[in-house]
């Protein structure tokens, strides 16, 4: 299957000259989850944001379904990519329904279709639409909120999902729950996913491929088994810390 996402030689340098991402290349196929693993400051979140152009790449080429990302207008591009962040960022003044249906609404879908899609997605992430649809974010638990966040990202059925430490703000038990549900969801939906995390256990659990980043570069790219067996000092360090 051809890759949904192709990143070649991506680079990001600040106006003052400091380089945060250097020569990053990888591909992600449908059904595949690429985990970008690394310590804080390794450039993994920056690299993620180059994909949906929240940060503009200084050099390199990024293609989605064969089309270069800079060929599209940035907002159009982002509507076709699901984006989930650690702080979740649900709109506090929108109900769960309105939050999930945001992108379809921006795209001008008919109301009926939006409502049906919202119901479908809430059920998919394990939230009863009848119960949760009319609630407001402040009435939900952290785990419930992030489920809504995921549903929101899936609303317009994008081929690619970007997740930036999505479970980082949740308690350990909820985190494990959501990780499990994530795997089940991915088996069903078979999206192309880039998943950023600093938690090696999470990475090994959820990823089909691991990209280890250090000081803005990818120092290892391979399967989880290859990662475990790798002699690379960075990989060893991560595994050692995880115990």
């Amino acid at each position, binding site marked *: 299957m051809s890759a949904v996402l192709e990143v070649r030689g991506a680079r990001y340098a600040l106006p003052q000259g400091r380089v945060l991402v250097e020569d990053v290349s990888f591909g992600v196929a449908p059904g595949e989850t690429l985990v970008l693993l690394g310590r804080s400051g390794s450039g993994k979140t920056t690299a993620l944001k180059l994909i*949906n152009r*929240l940060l503009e790449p200084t050099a390199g080429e990024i293609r989605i379904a064969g089309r270069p990302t800079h060929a599209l207008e940035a*907002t*159009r*591009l*982002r*509507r*076709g*990519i699901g*984006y989930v*962040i650690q*702080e*979740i*960022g*649900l*709109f*506090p*003044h929108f109900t769960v329904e309105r939050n999930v249906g*945001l*992108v379809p609404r*921006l795209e001008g879908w008919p109301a009926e279709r939006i409502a049906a899609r919202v119901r479908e997605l809430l059920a998919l992430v394990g939230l009863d639409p009848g119960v949760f649809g009319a609630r*407001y*974010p*402040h009435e939900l638990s952290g785990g419930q909120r992030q489920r809504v*966040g995921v549903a*929101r*990202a899936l609303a317009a059925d994008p081929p690619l999902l*970007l997740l930036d430490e999505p479970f980082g703000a949740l308690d350990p038990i909820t985190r494990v729950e959501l990780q499990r549900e994530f795997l089940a969801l991915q088996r069903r939906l078979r999206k192309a996913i880039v998943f950023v995390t600093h938690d090696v256990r999470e990475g090994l659990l959820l990823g089909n491929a691991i990209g280890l980043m250090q000081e803005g570069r990818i120092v290892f790219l391979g399967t989880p088994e290859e990662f475990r067996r790798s002699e690379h000092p960075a990989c060893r360090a991560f595994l050692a810390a995880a115990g």
Partner: protein
Amino acid sequence: MNLLQFYAHNSREALTLIGQHLFLVAVSTGIALTVGVPGGILLTRRPAWRGPVLGIANVLQTIPSLALFGFLIPLPFIGGIGARTAIVALVVYALLPIVRNTYTGIAGVDPAVREAGRGMGMTDGQLLAMVELPLAAGVILAGIRVATVVSVGTATLAGAIGAGGLGVYIFRGADMVNNTLILAGAVPAALMALAADGLLGLAERRLAWRAG
């Protein structure tokens, strides 16, 4: 004669002055809104301008109102005797609360909300209209409320420069040493300020986003 008798005898004049007063406050607040809200929004988009703009507005605010009227009178175009000068002065005083609150209200929106919105493909305009302004509405209205209440009081000075309003009664009463006249101007002005405060406070509570 007491206050009610005074109004009974001078109802037409009193209503004219009240109307003039309302006109001065409404026009100046309207202009301040038209300039101030977009101005505040602009400041959130251009953080570099925030210091100078808010700094200037702050300084203007500290000029004593009578002094500002005095400064404006000799100026061409915006100066001179009459309602136009009064309105310019009132706009100056209304700007700071409105610009500052617009800025603070929008800047106070959770950055995660803004990032999620951008990441999902909202344009800047959509973000502003669907997320930032609704969430900031309460704070912005608080600024409008302060600006309006201050305007009602400051507009009494318009009487000194021939711009009409309830200040006419107050100045007349001060010159004549006539307390009834002074009250005839001061009481409706105070009631107007209270009413504005109450009504806008109500709107503020309705629109203010209260989470949790």
